[in-house]
């Protein structure tokens, strides 16, 4: 019951946030003076044709009505125009790109696996390496491992991922010829090639962020290790491995989960940048292409989708949070997951 109520509160909060963000985004993109209909009305663009194109795309309505249409479209799908020229956009419809003649949802579905592959793999790697290095640094405090983890974290914060990525391509791709220099192979096509093409992007993104997590984990670990319950665990005669792995690590992971939740947006940005470095055609490439061609429905669709994604992922992190720390009451968890 408690868990259910917690879930319901968090879900409601998430939906509220999504609504606010989508209204703001929609307002920003549709209230600023730009005319998406003009771009696709062709030349010569007579006022009649412009009005026709505008009505067809649904831009002639007031923006709030357009926004509501958009929301309904996500749930129930949309239709543009009528007769022979009618366009169907099945639910969940995030808009329709009249330039590419494709629903935004389909475009996102086509491109998302690339971005997800980069982001999820990198995140897994950086959490394992970061937390692992932090724990080792804390346990072997003051040794070479400890010091190098600290130095590396300062460098990791300062080096742009694309620069390190390009140097990685130069060294491992061109000079040593051990990894491909770019491109993406779908997982369904060849899992080995998929992995092979992603090794370098993952390593670059993960190592730079792992350094920050190593620093955080180290600090937390040192604090936790001086707590009374750790002394109790040791006094009970538990093995050091168990003391650190079970008793200490759990409390160390709580702040790590908090920071990770905040880093999800950055992670997505990192994936977008990696796409360009490693010439992969993911969501970032889709968005940049849309921006270059002022494809407004696609821009809004991709932007809102990314926002939805990050907020949803944050919700998942919150759930992990409540598992990690059962002491957290419902409202506490919601409040402290964002604050620190």
């Amino acid at each position, binding site marked *: 019951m408690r868990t259910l109520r917690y879930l319901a509160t968090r879900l409601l909060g998430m939906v509220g946030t999504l609504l606010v963000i989508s209204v703001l985004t929609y307002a920003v993109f549709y209230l600023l003076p730009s005319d998406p209909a003009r771009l696709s009305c062709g030349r010569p663009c007579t006022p009649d044709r412009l009005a026709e194109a505008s009505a067809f795309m649904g831009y002639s309505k007031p923006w709030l009505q357009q926004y509501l249409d958009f929301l309904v479209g996500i749930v129930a799908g949309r239709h543009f125009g009528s007769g022979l020229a009618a366009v169907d956009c099945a639910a969940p419809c995030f808009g329709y790109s009249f330039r590419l003649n494709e629903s935004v949802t389909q475009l996102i579905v086509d491109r998302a696996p690339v971005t997800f592959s980069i982001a999820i793999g990198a995140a897994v790697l950086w959490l394992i390496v970061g937390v692992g290095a932090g724990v080792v640094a804390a346990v072997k405090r003051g040794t070479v491992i400890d010091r190098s983890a600290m130095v590396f974290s300062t460098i990791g*914060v300062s080096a742009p991922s694309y620069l390190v990525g390009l140097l990685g391509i130069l060294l491992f791709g061109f000079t040593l010829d051990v990894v491909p220099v770019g491109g993406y192979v779908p997982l369904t096509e060849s899992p080995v090639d998929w992995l092979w093409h992603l090794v370098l992007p993952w390593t670059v993104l993960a190592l730079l962020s792992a350094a920050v997590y190593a620093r955080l984990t180290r600090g937390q670990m040192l604090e936790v290790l001086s707590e009374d319950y750790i002394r109790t665990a040791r006094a009970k005669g538990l093995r050091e491995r168990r003391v650190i792995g079970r008793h200490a690590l759990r409390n160390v992971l709580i702040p790590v989960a908090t920071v990770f939740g905040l880093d999800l947006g950055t992670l997505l940005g990192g994936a977008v940048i990696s796409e360009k470095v490693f010439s992969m055609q993911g969501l970032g490439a889709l968005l940049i292409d849309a921006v270059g061609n002022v494809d407004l429905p696609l821009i809004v669709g991709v932007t809102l989708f990314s926002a939805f994604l990050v907020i949803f992922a944050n919700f998942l992190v919150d759930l992990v949070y409540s598992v990690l720390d059962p002491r957290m009451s419902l409202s506490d968890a919601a409040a402290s997951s964002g604050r620190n």
Partner: protein
Amino acid sequence: MVVDAPPVSAPTRQARHPLRQLLADRWAVAGGVTILVFLLVAVAAPLLSALEGHDPYTYDTNALTGDGLPIGFGGGISTEHWFGVEPQTGRDLFAIVVHGARTSFLVGFAATALSILIGVVVGVTAGYFGGWYDRIVSRFIDVLFGFPWLVFVIAIGAIAPAWLPKQLLIILVIGLFGWPGIARVIRGQTLALKQRTFVVAATALGAGPGHLLRRQYLPNLVSTIIVYSTMTIPGMIGAEAALSFLGVGVPPPTPAWGRTIGEAIAWVQTDPMFLIFPGAALFLVTLAFNLFGDGLRDALDPRTRGTRR
């Protein structure tokens, strides 16, 4: 008559003067010196490139082979072109890099100023007034904090009005997304200050919000603001570089490190020096600000003293 606030960080036993502490930190000093050097380069960019004899805009096909590659070793490094030339155009890379420092610093400083200003105003007022205003602001900060801002900033580029200079647009958007961090810290400190005896005393003596905010709160927040400003600058420089790298930042022909790094992708195998020079400049400036910021924080904030060895 209400007395002014005493400094919040009462001297502890081993506390040294912040400046001496800062100067004793070798890494912070190295960072500070590097920042100064780059700042001088940025200010004197036209002078430096005139000294070398080139500007960052003129094409020079004589420095290129038929394939568009620079003639000579290391991307065409010579007494004529100190850092070599840009492939395909033959523009002087030294001139591009030193002028690029101007772009980075201009955008970095301006965007930092904007986000610190918003962050301090929002943070102080949220902490001071509390109530529903604080709740809304805190929630907003939470949302903005984990936001995929890069995606948003890329998207904004498409609908920005044409009369708005792109550089100003970048300053505005990255500045507007950069304030939640400082706002959260300042809010927390304001809440802590609220409980301090001197603030309670000033309030009891009948001081109004204007006096409290200006004479009691702000002087005690100055060191935090300075530290955060220093630590925000490298992030802003990095944000501008990332946008320019993606091709949605500072438009050509204005020199920008990020854009040159982005263009270097196509030449990374044949002319790696085209990547190395702007890349090294960007990395060094970011590292310098981070080292200096860390040192400044350790010197000004006694609580974190000794976390770095």
